[in-house]
């Protein structure tokens, strides 16, 4: 019975070819065109746009990275220069202040020395004057004593 169904020519069977075949073919062809419009084209567009976007973004990012690296090395060099300049300024300032200090010190020392010398000279002269006066007074006194003693005799 089954074999009759399998190869039965007139009605039914597994190998029963009829208008299903061409109509199915037409249907699949139509489906191909519909899917092409609804699926393959739009999805392809989105996917390819994204691929482009990723590629260009990568390229841009690489470019930016290179730019950043260049700027970084630039800035590093500038920083080094600035450090050296700052060091130099500090050294200069230290030397300047040192010099100023020494000058002021020398000036002050000289002034002190000179005023001390002046004072000493003045003291000396006054002592001299006082001694002379003392000598004169002593001489006078001596003379007076001598006179009195002689007069009393």
């Amino acid at each position, binding site marked *: 019975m089954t074999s009759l169904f399998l190869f039965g020519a007139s009605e039914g069977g597994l190998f029963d070819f009829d208008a299903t075949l061409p109509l199915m073919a037409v249907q699949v062809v139509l489906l191909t065109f519909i899917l092409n419009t609804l699926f393959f084209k739009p999805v392809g567009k*989105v996917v390819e746009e994204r691929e482009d976007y990723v590629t260009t973004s990568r390229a841009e990012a690489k470019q930016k990275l290179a730019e950043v690296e260049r700027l970084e090395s630039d800035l590093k060099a500038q920083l080094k220069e600035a450090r050296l300049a700052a060091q130099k300024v500090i050294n200069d300032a230290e030397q300047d202040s040192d010099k100023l200090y020494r000058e002021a010190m020398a000036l002050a020392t000289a002034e002190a020395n000179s005023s001390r010398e002046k004072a000493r000279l003045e003291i000396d002269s006054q002592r001299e004057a006082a001694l002379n006066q003392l000598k004169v007074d002593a001489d006078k006194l001596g003379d007076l004593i001598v006179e009195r003693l002689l007069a009393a005799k």
Partner: protein
Amino acid sequence: MGLLPFVFPFAELEVGKHLYWQIGDLRIHGQVFMTSWIVIGALLALVVVGTKKMERDPRGVQNLLEFLWDYIRDLARTQIGEKVYRDWMPFIGTLFLFIFVSNWGGALVPWRLIRLPSGELGAPTADINTTVALALLVSLSYFYAGLSNKGLRYFEYYVHPTPIMLPFKIVEDFTKPLSLSFRLFGNILADELVVAVLVFLVPLVLPVPVMFLGLFTSAIQALIFATLAAYYIGEAVEEHH
């Protein structure tokens, strides 16, 4: 499903019975068209939902569609070659999607619960008309691809390494659609029959691994059909010097 043996005794496993529709002088297999419309409807629904709001950062169904697109593109590109794969991608993709959804629909949806006056619903690819239609479309496509790409030089292919190949290459033009259609038809029908027989004999547990095997076979068959179709087209457009 446990009731099936009583509803469909094995002697009437509905092999080779069809629900005939008469359109003018033409007779067609109604059950094949009914399931094929469901398959096409499911495909179109998926595609319409997935492409409704496409974004650069894909979300939801768009991911699935892009995965499928990528898969089909790789398939077409490796088999057909960089130069013309774009023209044939929709055809290869439609073959793959239609066969895949048909096979899985036949394996996953319990069609037998829907009673028809005659015949039964099942995968459209379990009908020889469908598979032969698809295989003949593939034949037409590779002839068209070869002729439109290389003109009459396409026929150099028949005598390519030596003219001795001529009869073999001619026979190949017949065996290609034959093997394509019968491989698909046989695998899907056999899978449905095995599941039906096992369900009839042991309605519990035992058919489940066979059903999983059926899903595997279904997917593989869709892939094989699409890959071979792409390969034939690639062979026809290939330049050999």
